[in-house]
């Protein structure tokens, strides 16, 4: 995470996400997939092929791509289909766009009710016998049962969670890095899934996205760094307010 300053001098914290060896693996048409739209399987970071059996390598062999650590699905419309085997780059996103990032949260192990659910616990003194971080009562007398989903101690973290509506501030095309506003679920160097935001406020934010994706061997020559309009670039002199 890094700080980033706007032209008016305000500071925002930014997470760096690297797009590492992403390839489209397979196209699943709408009828075969159980959902409402066609799906594209996309694979992430390259990993050694020797730790899994040959049967698991079929998808990667079809696409002509080394074995990937993570395979995710994206719901895609019919006009945005991409041929399996095409690499995906960070320039697929543009600064000023809004994005949802999904990742597996940091695992905290078996945790008590105070840390896991934010219960207040009991006072430290004034006669409490061996009761300082316990849940207290778990149901009422009339219910005569404990409801399903009652908040209790258990394994915390290591589940998929999404941060919605994160602004993309900057894109580095040389190293394939996306600068995304705020924090993102997961530990450092973990794999995350970045999608266009599904929030209704950001439906029409992306004016001219590279459609269906950014092709590196195309005619478009992008500069090394793409900045949002509001970012203070370090090539400018210091900010003077009027």
């Amino acid at each position, binding site marked *: 995470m*890094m700080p980033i300053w706007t032209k008016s001098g305000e500071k925002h914290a930014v997470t760096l996400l690297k797009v590492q060896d992403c390839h489209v693996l397979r196209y699943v048409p709408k009828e075969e997939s159980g959902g409402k739209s066609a799906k594209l399987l996309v694979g992430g970071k390259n990993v050694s092929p020797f730790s899994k059996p040959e049967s698991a390598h079929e998808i990667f062999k079809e696409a002509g791509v080394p074995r990937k650590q993570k395979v995710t699905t994206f719901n895609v419309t019919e006009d945005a289909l991409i041929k399996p085997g095409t690499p995906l780059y960070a320039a697929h996103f543009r600064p000023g766009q809004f994005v949802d990032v999904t990742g597996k949260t940091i695992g905290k192990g078996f945790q008590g009710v105070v840390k896991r659910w934010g219960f207040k616990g009991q006072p430290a003194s004034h006669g409490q016998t061996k009761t300082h971080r316990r849940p207290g009562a778990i149901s009422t007398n009339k219910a005569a049962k404990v409801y399903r989903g009652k908040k209790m101690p258990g394994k915390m973290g290591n589940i998929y969670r999404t941060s919605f509506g994160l602004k993309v501030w900057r894109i580095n095309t040389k190293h394939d890095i996306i600068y995304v506003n705020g924090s993102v679920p997961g530990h450092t160097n973990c794999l995350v899934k970045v999608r266009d935001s599904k929030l209704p406020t950001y439906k029409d934010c992306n004016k001219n996205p590279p459609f269906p994706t950014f092709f590196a061997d195309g005619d478009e020559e992008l500069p090394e760094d793409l900045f949002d309009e509001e970012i203070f670039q370090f*090539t400018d002199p*210091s900010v003077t307010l009027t």
Partner: protein
Amino acid sequence: RVSSDGKPPKFQPPPKPVIIDRKTQKEERRFLSPEFIPPRGRTDPLKYYIERKDMIQRRKVFNIPEFYVGHVLAVTTADPHARDKSNRFVGICIQRGGKGLGATFVLRNVIEDQGIEICYELYSPRIQAIEVLKLEKRLDENLMYLRDALPEYSTFDVNMRPVPRMDHEEIPVNKLQVRMKPKPWSKRWERPKYNIKGIKFDLPEHQMKAAQKWSQPWLEFDMLREYDTSKIEEKIRKELSEELEK
């Protein structure tokens, strides 16, 4: 010796002694700002490389002078609430923290009997100028104890003129021992954990001895805490000098 013509051999003067002045060679001081050195961790070095590129870019446009803890600096920032939209603050640098673009330094001064500390970010675009008024290192790297010292040690004239610097080589170390207000202090500065050499402790002997109870003499031998930055520093210095010359 057998002579060539029967005459005595030509006088060979003894070789002149070559004096290698090791002292001046070692004092070739190369300063590397502490926020360039990456901390120990599992982050990808690519992140630090990219951050360094941004820092170098900022340094090309705006001059960040070399300074240590104990220097007296004057910082002009852009302030939306001031009349001239800019604000000048003079103070002694108490501490330098943070790594990368978020590096900060805290300036302390006492203005009209009110102690003020302001934490500035080195790479913030709001900072318009940083001037070093007085160059002087102190015995410690963290002068937070000035909060509990007598206010005369933290007062600096706001209209102070920059002290002219004699040599371009040495930065003088001020071995000032600061006198403190009566206890209680904000932190127990006599404890060995803080390792402060710049305070004149007027405490009774038994209190100083009792403070030594919290000493952890094994810490300096702990090998897992060792972080040798010499090679990393060399690489970063090379990179910096190359980039700044461009």
